[in-house]
């Protein structure tokens, strides 16, 4: 009996990982919703930038698809306009564009019409030959969330979920609008794609500084021993925006701050800051630990929601000499809207490391400035030998604060007390700063560049997994339930302020105050 053994594919002997960018396999990217805002502002500019920096394989193609009838050339022309307009911190090069444009194709079609998928299959076969994409296909769902399940089921029905190469699908947020709908959507997607092929994107996790949290915690030996309930007094996570809903009033009215930010971005950031160290730095272990942390978050009882969660909505105000409308005055917003534009929540993590340490998360629109950071407030020394000099006199304080700044000045600062020069033991706080952008002068890739590359490479570490999504819905679900049945007296904070007084009261009951970032 003879046994046929297929030789493994040759490993590229010309690779030089110290100098070359990460290896990206050839592939075709099919973008559903290609004429939409996300494609124009983020996806195509990111792909062009990766191409410009030669970080993607030369054997590569993009197939855009949407209902708008267009030829390949018209699609290329439109995308050229968008890329040159929305390219961040990078020059637009006409010659590079010409090469890039040769990799762009367009298939007009409607997600509801089965023949559209046949057209995509034909185009994929065509680019596999012309661009040697090795039949690897990455589908990107940049459509209305209500179309996700339908589009994926059609991909399955047209056998676009299998082939000689790999098949992966990236799904944008929101992933469901509550726990039940998220579970249902997961069930539908799993009929077509295995979990390992599903990439649920949360662009916050692709931000360089969020990734740096892992490097900071697990690459250094000095912080992790302090990273627990014994030394940490509490944690504050802030994601503030100075702008309002900017033309997204219709969408935002349905979503609200809790769904838009806390359920996804900020709960993932919390998990990254507070998770246990993975045993190995790989996708499975990192995501296991994130999921474990989210499962350890205490799920509020309905009666506790008023104590631990605060909703707010901005009202009109004079900001910087200009009259700013309230949320209810924004276009496409119901004048009696009950949607929160601000949310603050106290979470407790019921595990050995964090039991009893409150985590305060707040997010809002029309705040005094745009800032996202995580502040770890350490406990005061056990004996107060010194008093700190402050503007209002001398007092004892909790001096040590570690701030992980995500945007806009990405970096890390550690505040500690130091003796003021001169006679007498007078102390004042000083800050030790690491500034990410200035210490590494090179341009950081945007979150979408990072995440698109990861998906092409097949590294899901920075993508959310089914259990993570469901766990994060689980922790906000009681709040959603209670708020849905509450009557709020909105607006309760003026535009340009740090939120409603109730949020201050929420912290005051634990003996804490919000930082001013």
């Amino acid at each position, binding site marked *: 009996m003879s046994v046929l053994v297929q030789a493994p*594919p*040759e490993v*590229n*002997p*010309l*690779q*030089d990982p*110290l*100098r*070359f*960018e990460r*290896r*990206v*396999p*050839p592939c075709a990217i099919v973008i559903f919703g290609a004429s939409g805002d996300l494609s124009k502002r983020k996806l195509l500019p990111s792909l062009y930038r990766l191409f410009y920096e*030669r970080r993607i*394989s*030369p*054997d590569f193609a993009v197939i855009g698809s949407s209902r708008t009838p267009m030829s390949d050339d018209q699609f290329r022309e439109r995308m050229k306009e968008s890329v040159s307009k929305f390219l961040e911190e990078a020059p637009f*090069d006409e*010659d*590079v564009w*010409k*090469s890039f444009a040769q990799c762009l194709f367009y298939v007009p079609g409607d997600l509801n019409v089965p023949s559209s998928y046949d057209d995509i299959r034909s185009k994929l076969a065509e680019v596999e030959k012309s661009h*040697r994409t*090795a*039949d690897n296909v990455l589908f990107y769902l940049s459509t209305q969330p209500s179309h996700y399940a339908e589009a994926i089921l059609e991909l399955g029905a047209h056998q676009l979920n299998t082939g*000689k*190469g790999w098949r992966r699908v990236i799904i944008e947020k929101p992933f469901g609008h509550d726990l039940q709908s998220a579970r249902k959507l997961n069930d539908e997607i799993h009929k077509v794609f295995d979990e390992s092929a599903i990439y649920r994107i949360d662009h916050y996790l692709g931000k360089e500084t969020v990734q740096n949290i892992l490097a900071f915690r697990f690459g250094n030996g000095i912080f992790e021993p302090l990273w627990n309930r014994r030394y940490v007094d509490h944690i504050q996570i802030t994601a503030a925006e100075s702008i309002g809903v900017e033309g997204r009033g219709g969408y935002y009215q349905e979503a609200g701050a809790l769904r838009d930010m806390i359920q996804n971005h900020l709960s993932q950031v919390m998990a990254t800051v507070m998770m246990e160290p993975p045993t190995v730095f790989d996708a499975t272990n990192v995501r296991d630990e994130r999921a474990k942390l989210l499962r350890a978050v205490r799920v509020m009882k309905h009666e506790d929601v008023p104590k631990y969660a605060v909703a707010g909505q901005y009202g009109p105000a004079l900001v910087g000499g200009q009259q700013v409308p309230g949320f209810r005055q924004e276009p496409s917003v119901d004048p009696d809207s009950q949607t929160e534009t601000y949310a603050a929540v106290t979470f407790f993590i019921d595990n050995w490391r964090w039991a009893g340490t409150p985590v305060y998360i707040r997010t809002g629109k029309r705040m005094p400035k745009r800032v996202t950071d995580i502040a770890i407030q350490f406990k005061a020394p056990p004996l107060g030998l010194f008093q700190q000099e402050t503007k209002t006199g001398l007092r004892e304080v909790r001096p040590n604060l570690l701030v992980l700044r995500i945007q806009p*000045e990405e970096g890390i600062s550690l505040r500690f007390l130091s003796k003021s020069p001169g006679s007498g033991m007078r102390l004042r706080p000083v*800050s030790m*700063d690491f*500034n990410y*952008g*200035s*210490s*590494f*002068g*090179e341009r950081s890739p945007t979150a979408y560049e990072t995440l698109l590359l990861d998906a092409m490479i097949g590294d899901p570490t920075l993508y959310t997994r089914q259990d993570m999504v469901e766990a994060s819905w689980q922790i906000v679900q009681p709040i959603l339930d209670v708020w849905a049945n509450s009557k709020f007296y909105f607006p309760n904070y003026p535009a340009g302020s740090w939120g409603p007084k109730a949020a201050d009261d929420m912290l005051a009951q634990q003996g804490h105050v919000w930082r001013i970032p």
Partner: protein
Amino acid sequence: MSSAVIFPAQPEQILKGLGKLWTSLGQEEKQQGKPTVLRACAMTLIVATDEPDGGFSASQTIAELMREHPSRGIVLAVSPEAEHELEARVLAQCWKPFGKAQQICCEQIEITARPDSWPNVGPTLVGLIAADLPVIFWCRHKTALDTSATEDQKAGLQAVIRLANKVVIDTQGLPAAAALQMLSALRAKGRTVADLEWTRLTKWRQPIAQIFDNPARQTPYSQFRAIEIAHTGDQLPSCAAYAGAWFSAPYKANVSFVKVDGYGPGLHRIALRAKSEEIVFERTGSDCMRLYSTNGQQRSYTYEERMDTGLMTEELAILGSDPAFETAFARAVELLHDQD
């Protein structure tokens, strides 16, 4: 950039000068009541130069490098007109990131030696190395590297090399045989040695390597049995030797070097030949390159002569050993030996 006066290069005085410099920068902070200066240092970068500008261009390059590799920069220059046997001045190289209020500053020491005092720079440097951080020595002192260097020049160079974890040289313009000999001598001292001629090759190597990332391609790399390297200039440059070595190393392919009147200096074309396919990457103009295959694939690239800053930025990111360069170097020695 702030600067101070020139004084005799005693380590203690230099360190005192640095202390004063930071105190004066701190004064500004005190006046403004907020942090205005951030001090950054990730390594000691020593640059020795015998260029006639007295280290000016080396200083400029360090200032550009600090954005990605903040360091304590030490520029060693030689000048018969120096006031003292060894003299120094200290300064801070500062830059303000766009839109930020705080300046990032690195300290820099410039030491100028009279030619006969060159051997004394090593002992002076010992006290000036930033503690607990890597020391990189970028030798732009061509005379001291040359085989015809005087004993004093050699001794001065050796004293600096002894302090360094990594030594960077540039063999551009040297014949490959002389370049490899120079590198072999430095490697024999047990130091990690880098050659910027190898660094220049990254822009050639990466696009070709990417072609073979596709496991589905019909002609695998093992079938490319002939490598042709075309170069400009009369003598084989070290970059051509490295290119031939790197592309032939995995399967010991045959290498031929040809001299052409192409775009230069240095490498003009790399051709990889299999029975069923030929892949060519060549310069097609002063600012463009083309990568094509006989199977119909083609891609154009912009060609830019890489500046020292870009080359050093890449090199400073690799502080340990560089296995790809080790492989190419060993194979280049073999190839030149075979050619003899």
